[in-house]
């Protein structure tokens, strides 16, 4: 089996062109899925018998929360690849992930607390999932802060990659300790553990939005990756040729 495709992925010119070619293949399905899923979720799906219309925020909240974690994993894994095999493109991927992941985390927190107001009667409840999400936001902010602290891109890459890997090891520990902490302190009145199964009219839009958001993230990552490669390779000769062509 040939490994050339893998080695090609480490080459900035190849990745720059590949990202440009792939972007529409992710962006258009993402747009279609999100629009269709939101229409189905916000208009077609019946209101929840307990939460009324308020449950519909799940169609933004759940995909944001899912992506906030997935983006961190993508970031940590690509940072580890960059750190171990010294692949610059992998560092560029990790660097492009962080602001996107932080934004999804903020979106999950905001929609979560907006949902909390009618459901819990308060904007903020020390719910284990919301608390974990808040800690995740600080992990992202630490990563971005560390990157911002270095002038030299390569040093920023390697230092922040190490932090991302350390964070990746810690995320499950933090998550479980927060869950454990919460189970000790809070009366289990807010969230029932065994929720009734969602009817298909509610579940299908949710799955569409989840897939749509994920594809949207990939498209966004590809665009950001191109910008990142442009910034890093601004003095390279291949770039001048590619831009002239």
């Amino acid at each position: 089996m040939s490994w050339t495709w893998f080695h090609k992925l480490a080459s900035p010119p190849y990745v720059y062109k590949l990202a440009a070619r792939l972007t529409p293949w992710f962006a258009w399905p993402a747009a279609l899925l999100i629009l269709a899923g939101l229409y189905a979720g916000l208009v077609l799906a019946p209101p929840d018998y307990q939460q009324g219309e308020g449950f519909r925020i799940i169609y933004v909240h759940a995909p944001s929360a899912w992506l906030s974690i997935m983006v961190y994993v993508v970031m940590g894994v690509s940072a580890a690849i960059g750190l171990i095999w010294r692949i610059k493109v992998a560092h560029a991927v990790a660097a492009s992930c962080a602001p996107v992941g932080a934004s999804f985390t903020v979106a999950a927190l905001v929609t979560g607390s907006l949902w909390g107001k009618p459901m819990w009667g308060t904007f903020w409840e020390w719910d284990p999932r919301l608390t974990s999400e808040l800690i995740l936001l600080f992990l992202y902010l630490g990563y971005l802060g560390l990157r911002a602290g270095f002038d030299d891109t390569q040093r920023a890459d390697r230092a922040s990659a190490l932090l991302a890997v350390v964070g990746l090891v810690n995320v499950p520990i933090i998550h479980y300790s927060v869950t454990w902490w919460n189970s000790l302190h809070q009366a289990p009145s807010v969230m029932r553990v065994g929720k009734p199964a969602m009817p298909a009219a509610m579940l299908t839009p949710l799955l569409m939005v989840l897939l749509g958001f994920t594809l949207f993230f990939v498209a966004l990552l590809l665009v950001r990756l191109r910008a990142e490669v442009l910034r890093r390779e601004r003095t390279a000769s291949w770039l001048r040729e590619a831009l002239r062509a």
Partner: protein
Amino acid sequence: MRSAGLSAPASSVAVAAGPVSRDAAASAPALTAACLAVSRDLALAFRRRGQLVQPLAFFVLVTLLFPLAVSPELARLRSIAPGVLWVAALLASLLALEFLFRDDAQDGTLEQYALSGQSLTWLMFAKTLAHWLLTGLPLSIVAPFAALSLGVGPAALPGILAAMVVGTVTLSLIGAIAAALTLGMKRSGVLLALLTLPLSLPVLICGARATELAVSGNAYLAPLELLAALAVLAVTLAPLAAAAAVRISLE
């Protein structure tokens, strides 16, 4: 100062080891170097005793703020004592991180460590151990007295001491990674907090829980064991990460 002495005893040990198997001969200098690094850091620190007291004073000062800010009522203070103690310990150990690598990075000792051919992981473990002996351990010894002033009964003090001793080990090790990552920066104080605190939350949760159980007179072994598990994990992995971070910072 004593950095010249780092290589001489190591080689003499290798000679003294003589016919011992090669593995033992190869691993002994790493341990010897680590012991030397610990004793060097301790010796340097005891020449500047003022610096040693600062985190302790800070810790006591923070615990003093709460009776003034909340209420002097001992019953109320007792209920918030575990949280107060652990938040103060977290902040004090954060403050102390500044002393961990700063001087050695400035005078080039860290570079010599990296170039010495010794395992940098062991040396980082040694530096962190020395740091813990100088800050974490005194903090753990002061914490029961601070707890007394917050209205906690004397029966709870062994539990508090145990939780603090085990918890501060992890805090020092996590802090070592963050301190090594921010070595090259001029002003890293706030960033150091931003990097360290989210990673320290499991220690805070388990430590405060163990303290709370000890204060209320219950069995506190379960959270203490979780704390110990975190400490074992940190002892195993954090020196590796800190060594990698120092290498990146020295590049």
